[in-house]
């Protein structure tokens, strides 16, 4: 092997080693992943201001990222997302029509209609699990007090962020007993939005 071949072989080795090191470094820094479920699927999607292809999965750095989605005739949306190291998340949104021209857009695009439904049901799942994680009392509900004195349920109101407890009780004493039961489970009733129904459960 002459000197030229030796030099070339050494150089190639260095290049390969460098590439390998770069890929390892890259994988350790860009350890989070994001994919997208967007309707309409032809929307313009930007990740941190850079236009991307929402049908692909992107490897990103952990931390905060912003996804913007826009399409003519629909209300644009901005999604703030926080990623932990190694975490994979899906950016979900189904844009809502804001003009008569796009009123029946989903009707005429059945594939996108399905995506929109998928977005909705995934949001249900995410929100449900998050809600239970933040308010484990939900796992105990509905709870009926002794002798049907009161009943405690849960739910949500459109204008209230987070869970809303419903206490069905015929009188003040029963309401107080219901609140005491909540306290007895280790929760502060004042931390909840509570809706009262004054009747027997």
């Amino acid at each position, binding site marked *: 092997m002459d000197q030229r*071949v030796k030099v*070339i072989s050494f150089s*190639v080795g260095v*290049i*390969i080693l460098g*590439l390998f090191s770069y*890929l390892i470094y*890259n*994988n350790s820094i860009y350890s989070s992943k994001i994919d997208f*479920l967007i*309707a309409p699927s032809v929307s313009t999607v930007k990740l941190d201001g850079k236009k991307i292809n929402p049908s692909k*999965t992107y*490897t990103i750095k952990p931390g905060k990222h912003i996804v913007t989605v826009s399409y003519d005739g629909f209300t644009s949306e901005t999604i703030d997302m926080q990623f932990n190291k190694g975490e*994979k998340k899906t950016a979900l949104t*189904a844009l*809502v*029509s804001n003009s008569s021209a796009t*009123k*029946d*857009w*989903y*009707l005429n695009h059945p594939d996108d*209609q*399905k*995506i*929109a*439904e*998928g*977005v*909705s*049901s*995934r*949001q*249900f*799942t995410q*929100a*449900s*699990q998050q*809600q*239970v994680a933040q308010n484990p009392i939900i*796992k*105990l*509900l*509905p709870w*009926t*007090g*002794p*002798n*049907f004195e009161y*009943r405690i*349920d*849960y*739910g*949500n*109101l*459109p204008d209230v962020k987070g869970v*809303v407890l*419903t206490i*069905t009780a015929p009188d003040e004493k029963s309401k107080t007993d219901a609140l005491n039961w909540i306290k007895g489970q280790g929760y502060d009733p004042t931390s909840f939005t509570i*809706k009262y129904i004054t009747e027997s459960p």
Partner: protein
Amino acid sequence: MKRIFAKFTTPLQLILQSFLILLMLSSQVFAISSSDYLSVIRETTFYDENSCSTNPDVAVSAGTGSPTGATFPNLDPSAMANAINTYISKNYPNSLMNGLGSTIVASAKQANVSPFIIVGIGRQESGLANPNDWNTKNGNNPFGRTATPTQPHFNGSGSASSTLWYKWTTIKSSVDYTAAENTNASGGGDEASYIRNRFASHLDKSDFVGFFEGYAPPAENDTAAYVAGVQALITELVNLTTGGGSQSSAVQTSATSQNSSCGVCGGDTSGSTIVIDPGHSGTSNRVIDPATGLIDFDYKNTLEISEVFTIAKDLQAKLTALGYKVVLTKENENDTVSLRQRADIANSSNAALAISIHDDHGPTFANFQQISDQEVGSYRTTPAGKNITFTNQQIADKSKVYATYIQQARQAASGIQPAIKLISFDNREGLSPGNIPLVQLFSNVPWVYNEVGANGITADQLKQYETGLLDGIVKSVPLTGGGSSICGGGIIQTALSLAWPEPFDKDTNKESEQRKYPQTPTAAYLAALKKYNPADYTESAPVGSGRWGDDCGIFVSTVMRASGADPNYPQSGTMAEASYVKSHPEKYTIIENITSTAQLQPGDILIVNVGTGAGGNGHTFIYLGKQSGGYDSAEASLGDHSGELSNAWLNFKGGVYFAARLKK
């Protein structure tokens, strides 16, 4: 690898190859092809324990063990019992173990042991309880089990006269963990409990050689041949259970049999009325029962009458909230109601289950937890000496099953296993002698009688008692929800039988042996999908396409169709489903603006859709009421996950849910 490099001789080729390898190594995203997905489903071995059972005696659920392993297998318990009975009757017609399949399976489940091992040992040791076998003849011991001096035993003969052999009173007792002689028996009572007690570490690892080197030591046996014989029999019994096939075909067999025999739903067909009988009357009441001549006597037992009435009222409230119809045998704590009247209340209610609740302040709590079922042959004796005997085998069978469920639930709640045994009323002043409470004797519905005792019973202990009773009732008589059913299960029971029992853990992307991907359907759901919703099922579709039943509308539709509640329910699409239920007021009551579970009843369908025109943008799920694990809803999500239990979330961007309640 060396051969691959050998093909490339130039530096350029080497560089290209290095790139390729590096690219392969750095790739972290692996697409899941539909063929991969299919293989996952086909290789998944699971059995839906809520599916229809062919043998009412086997009231146990499937295990998690391998079909040919040493722990209780993931196979249909009823099918296992039938396979054992078939095998014995065909190959050992004189066996005294004939017909004990369900008993063997139930005890094996209790001990988490393969029932096939029990049969295998019986075959090796005694020709499956051949009547001429020494141990069978002298000690009802088909398993060659030895004994310690403190255990029930008999002596061997001849040169083995110093050997003590375990002795049971009947062959059935040898495989029946509920037999009185086995309760709390030192070293384990029935055979399954015994081998679990002695060889747990080997069983859990399916280490047959280690297990049998202990059970049938090489010094006395040809252990290798013993192991081979038992394992060959296990394989034969597995094939009999599954219809003859491999592990993967067992799944197919299970699904197919569900389709062909009774659909894919399950559940109790007897209704959901529960009668709760809090013990004792407010005044002493002694009458002669005109129908039988027995002494019908009850009295006020202070403390007990109050404590058990409180429990009864609590249970009534909780069961009612879950959707049961609950009838108490007395309205007020101090009402006087004869034992005949109590039985009549349950009979006229056509109750699925009646339970009596008693407690006692005498014995210690640990020593007195008791349950009594209705056993054929149990009796009470009139003052004239006539025996009045319980004879209803069908009710006795159900009562025994429910007693076992309640026993398990009470044990889970208190940590102490109540004994299931008859109660003696002999030599009790003023009472007709015998061994069955009059309420049970007079009843023609399944009735489970409960006692708990303690010196100074505490509120916590009473609460444990109540919790155990509640869980036992719910397990015994699952809610069936609204609507009729092909095979007895209604909306709720069908949803429970089709959905995974908990959400897929997406935070950790946790995979389980049974559910590799969140979109993986249960075997029962897959079977239901093929049968009831074929238009929305595509076997060749990629994962996440919503063509595997991973869609909210398809899941709800499949439940409604499979349960028989509404065979015409639209196959998919929340818009179509919303439109359908609203346009059929003869079938559905619509409750608008749902924002709380307080507005719901178990079995309600929740729908929201904010799409314009026919544009679907919404969600639908089924509210089940509180279920195991604290979940209250069942739903799927398009492209995201298959049917699974979850908790309701009643918020929706731009819209509000409404509920569709099937009219009865």
